[in-house]
């Protein structure tokens, strides 16, 4: 269990790692918009290439990216199948009984696959592989800072996130330990009716909650002893400032989005390639 590292941060020290986390949050959001802007096969091709380029810039091994895509294979296949069999169009390629496959279906299936892959790869490249969870909560806190004026507890929220991230692995370990302990007392978690199985969770949940409360209590005391008194007057060890590279990156992303929109427009106008 200890091998689970939260957020899958991969320290390769690339340019992407060094960007201000706020920039990366914005880049991630813009990239999502770009994936949805794509309508034309050339745009999709460009999107795909941009993904490869980003992976190269971030210096993340391909293997790791592929592994992260494993959980979504099912969703991808599902959308591909739906698109292949249910899209109708003009160019019928194959027909048998009630199954009709159109060229448009194949195109759409391909597009959706690329879109999903790029959605996952793009966001995880900006937000998890190159940014630690702490940087991320920090960035969100700073991006939302203007909301403090209308009394939104932004600092408290981000502190909660930080602590949650810190304690998830601890509580996973704890759950495992309690489960082993109760198994040793003959508890059975996998057999019986639904009600019986739900009841079997009590010997795990009660100790887990008791321990979580005890931890929370001790942590609160420890934090108080370290002079924690809310967000007021707090400083930060690492203060990142938006630099030239951040502006460049954001600018590049906006150019990329604009190019995609232009491709969509002119390709549709002159009938180049397939457009959704």
């Amino acid at each position: 269990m200890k091998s689970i590292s939260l957020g899958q941060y991969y320290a390769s020290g690339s340019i992407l790692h060094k960007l201000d986390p706020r920039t990366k949050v914005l880049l991630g959001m813009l990239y999502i918009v770009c994936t949805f802007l794509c309508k034309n096969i050339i745009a999709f091709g460009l999107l795909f290439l941009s993904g490869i380029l980003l992976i190269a810039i971030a210096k993340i091994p391909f293997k790791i990216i592929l592994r992260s895509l494993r959980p979504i294979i099912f969703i991808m296949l599902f959308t591909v199948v739906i698109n292949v069999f249910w899209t109708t169009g003009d160019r019928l390629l194959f027909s048998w009984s009630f199954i009709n496959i159109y060229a448009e279906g194949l195109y759409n299936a391909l597009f959706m696959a690329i879109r999903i892959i790029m959605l996952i790869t793009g966001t995880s490249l900006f937000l998890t592989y190159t940014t630690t969870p702490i940087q991320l909560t920090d960035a969100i806190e700073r991006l939302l800072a203007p909301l403090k004026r209308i009394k939104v507890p932004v600092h408290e929220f981000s502190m909660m996130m930080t602590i949650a991230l810190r304690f998830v692995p601890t509580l996973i370990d704890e759950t495992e330990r309690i489960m082993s302990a109760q198994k040793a007392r003959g508890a059975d978690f996998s057999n019986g009716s639904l009600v019986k199985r739900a009841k079997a969770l009590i010997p795990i949940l009660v100790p887990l909650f008791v321990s979580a409360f005890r931890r929370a209590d001790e942590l609160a005391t420890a934090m108080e002893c370290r002079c924690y008194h809310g967000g007021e007057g707090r400083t930060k060890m690492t203060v990142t400032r938006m630099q030239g590279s951040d502006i460049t990156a954001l600018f590049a992303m906006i150019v990329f989005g604009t190019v995609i929109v232009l491709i969509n427009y002119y390709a549709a106008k002159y009938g180049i390639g397939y457009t959704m």
Partner: protein
Amino acid sequence: MSQPFIKVENVSYSYDEEINLIPAVSGVSLEIEEGSYVAFAGRNGSGKSTFAKLLNMILEPSDGKIYISGKEIDVNAMTDAELMETRRNIGMVFQNPDNQLVATIVEDDVAFGPENLGVPSDEIRRRVDDALKTVGMSEYAKSEPQRLSGGQKQRIAIAGIIAMMPKCIIFDESTAMLDPSGRREVVDMMEKLNREYGITIITITHYMDEAVRADRVIVMDGGRVVMDGTPEQVYAEPEKIRAAGLELPQCAELVCRLREKGIKLDGCCITPESCAELICRALEVTSNE
């Protein structure tokens, strides 16, 4: 004569007066000098941990007064700034290493205290690097706490306190959950902080062998101070130690029993080495007399 760093006057504390008629701490008066290394020993429920929490204002005394650097500490009468200053001066390391680390990265955790104090960023950076160097954990600066051993986690917790530049650190049973090597790491660290950095160390423990590494041992039982002196003085009264529910290390126990059987052993024995010397000397005397 300068005023004592910590002065406790007739302090009592009860957790819940309705249920618990016996106070956890009752009528304790003592003084602790700046730069000293003091151990509080006692069985579970002897009031030693409660006492430590009173010093750090986690709890407020039901009765009596506590002065730190000559100033009375009273949560209600103090301004926030004074309260923070007192807390900064008296750091505390707790028992469970998991429940006092806040951040997911070691150096972020060490920075937590100074960040709360509003220390400028570059100064925090310097303090964090220094603190990690002091506890010998510099190479783990970017690690995740859950990958460290118990002893290492406690050293990170200590670094987090040092970064606040306290005058005094209280260790509230900080070794109880550690294995022998982790315990050694932490106790060595206490000694180092006291000897090399002049930080006042107050350690709370039920391990006698750990307590005797301090300059002064205070044994508590039933909320009261029952023994107070140098390790040698405390060891000289084994019955009292046993009565307080503590255990002598085996060598000291052996020397005691031999004395009870009428064998003359002069001097004090804290380590196996000193014990061996003691016995050898006694044997020579016996055969040469």
